[in-house]
């Protein structure tokens, strides 16, 4: 028994070491940094609750929080709807089905920076492909990334496109789990296509939907690379996300203590939001 326990610990040791170095240590270090002022060069100075106090009154930080919530309010519904719709389409008998599935998954494995550069070109006001198409059908070109009202929605649409393949996989797995006899039973019982979706498919995909909401919320709060590459947070700071603000404080202003405080605040915000989401949609989870 003791030998068994020892070999068990031994086998877990590499992962435990990894976790300690890359998760536990940074978390603890960040918590310590909250109470320090440190520019990465000079000796850190103890600052008490200064960082927290500054953060609470930092209009730029709260603007970033607001921006991130705007992003999520567009990204989440769009992500769920597009992933679900694509999964339903790809679950049918379809020509070249494997090709389509691979095609929609491809953006997931492409670097975020590459996707951001690609989409900057698509969104470009004068030479972009999207505006080219709009002009061709007789519409006015839209300054996607330079108009404060369209910049964040444009980024949200792009992030949705990049991640959709991942969530499609989750929904496809869920769809294949619905027993054939259930689908046939509801068909015989008189359901139209919409009623089949409403009364069988959608409720039976609830566990997958909870997962998609949780994962895309956590991901969405960490929005960084897209505004960093495409807009630099503009126009009028409208695409300044929380993580972009954190990054700027850490590596442009060298305010490591303040950046860590933003990081801890972000973790608390994510935790709270996910908890609320679970309460709301988790009620129906008792399948």
């Amino acid at each position, binding site marked *: 028994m003791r030998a068994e326990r020892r070999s068990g610990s031994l086998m877990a040791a590499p992962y435990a070491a990894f976790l300690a170095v890359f998760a536990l240590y940074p978390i603890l270090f960040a918590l310590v940094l909250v109470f320090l002022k440190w520019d990465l060069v000079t000796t850190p100075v103890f600052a008490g609750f200064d960082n927290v106090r500054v953060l609470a009154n930092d209009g730029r930080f709260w603007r970033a929080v607001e921006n991130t919530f705007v992003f999520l309010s567009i990204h989440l519904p769009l992500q769920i709807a597009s992933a679900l719709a694509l999964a339903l389409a790809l679950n049918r008998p379809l020509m070249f089905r494997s090709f389509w599935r691979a095609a929609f998954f491809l953006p997931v494995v492409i670097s975020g920076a590459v996707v951001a550069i690609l989409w900057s070109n698509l969104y470009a006001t004068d030479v972009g492909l999207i505006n080219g198409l709009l002009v061709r059908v007789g519409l006015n070109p839209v300054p996607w990334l330079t108009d404060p009202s369209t910049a964040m929605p444009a980024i949200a649409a792009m992030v949705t496109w990049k991640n959709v393949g991942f969530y499609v996989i989750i929904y496809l797995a869920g769809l294949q789990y619905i027993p054939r006899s259930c689908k*046939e039973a509801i068909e015989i*019982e008189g359901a139209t296509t919409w009623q089949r979706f409403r009364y069988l498919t959608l409720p039976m995909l*609830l566990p997958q939907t909870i997962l998609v909401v949780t994962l895309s919320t956590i991901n969405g709060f960490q929005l960084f690379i897209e505004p960093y590459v495409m807009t630099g947070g503009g126009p009028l700071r409208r695409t300044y996300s929380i993580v972009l603000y954190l990054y700027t404080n850490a590596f442009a202003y060298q305010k490591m203590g303040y950046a860590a405080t933003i990081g801890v605040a972000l973790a608390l915000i994510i935790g709270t939001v996910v908890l609320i989401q679970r309460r709301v949609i988790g009620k129906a989870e008792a399948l």
Partner: protein
Amino acid sequence: MPSVHFDHVSKRFGATTVVEDFSLDVEDGELLVLVGGSGSGKTTILRMLAGLEEVTEGTIRIDDRDVTALPPRDRDVAMVFQDYGLYPHMTVRENLSLGLRLRKVARTEIDRRVAWAADMLRLEPLLDRKPKQLSGGQQQRVAMGRAMVREPLVFLFDEPLSNLDAGLRAQMRIEIGGLQRRLMTTTVYVTHDQVEAMTLGDRIVVLADGRIQQIGKPIELYRSPVNRFVAGFVGTPPMNFVDGNVAQKNGSISFTSDGIDFPFLSERRASDVPSGSVTLGIRPEDMTVDVLDAQSDGPTRGLQGRVVLVERLGGTSHIHFDAGPHRLLAAVSNDRLPEVGDAISVRLHSERIHLFVGDRRISSVI
């Protein structure tokens, strides 16, 4: 007027023919059983009737309406699936009522029908549970209730009992039969289990390789199977078959095979029986077994055999014995059973002997 009418229906998947030229009338209120082994096409026929499978050729009519091209929801049928197909996220009550809600039936009428079905199937205490909180037998009853509340023209059962254990299966068989007789709803019931078919069916359709082998009442299939397949398929334990020859000697006819010379047909007209190679069929219960004592000089009419196995089932016993190279089985209810190794004399009840030429049974012999 028949309630369900199949007119020369065929089903092909690519080059494979699953159902071939299937024609059948199901009478109003009848419980018709489709029985056959796997690959016999029985489930495909049921699924074509439900509208879950397209018909390659031919027409299907329900209540004198051509439904061949109609989607399942427009056929007014209800189906009970092998794995029940209950909606796992809904309570029993919601499972029962969904079909009616989808069809915009009035709330009071839905409540009335759900209460009626729940009462008939003893489901009241379970109405607020989810399917996974129910036993297999209870899920089965919910599936039946879901079909009943719709009050459809036709019930379809697709091997509904095969996921239950033996005891429950026998009990549910009785319930389904009783329920169908009370409701008098036309029912098509698919099973691979011939005992289920025999006990439930008003009529039985025996299928093999997508073709009808025989249609008839259970006792007709049992007493007068048209061919060797039906003879072997219907009845447990199955019929014994012995390949041999019929030869006429001095006006009497005998059946001969390796180690068997059996003059069983003396009372029959010789012209009824073809000479040449035939297969003799005899059901295990149509034999009488006598233990040969040392002093007896043996029977004159019967098979001589040696017992290789005795299965005591209580009421009846199965005696496996060798007659020449043939391993046969007799089902007897004797008090005095032979022991393994005993020499026995076996009398065949000649009015119950079946003769097959090729695959077909020669009905005139019986």
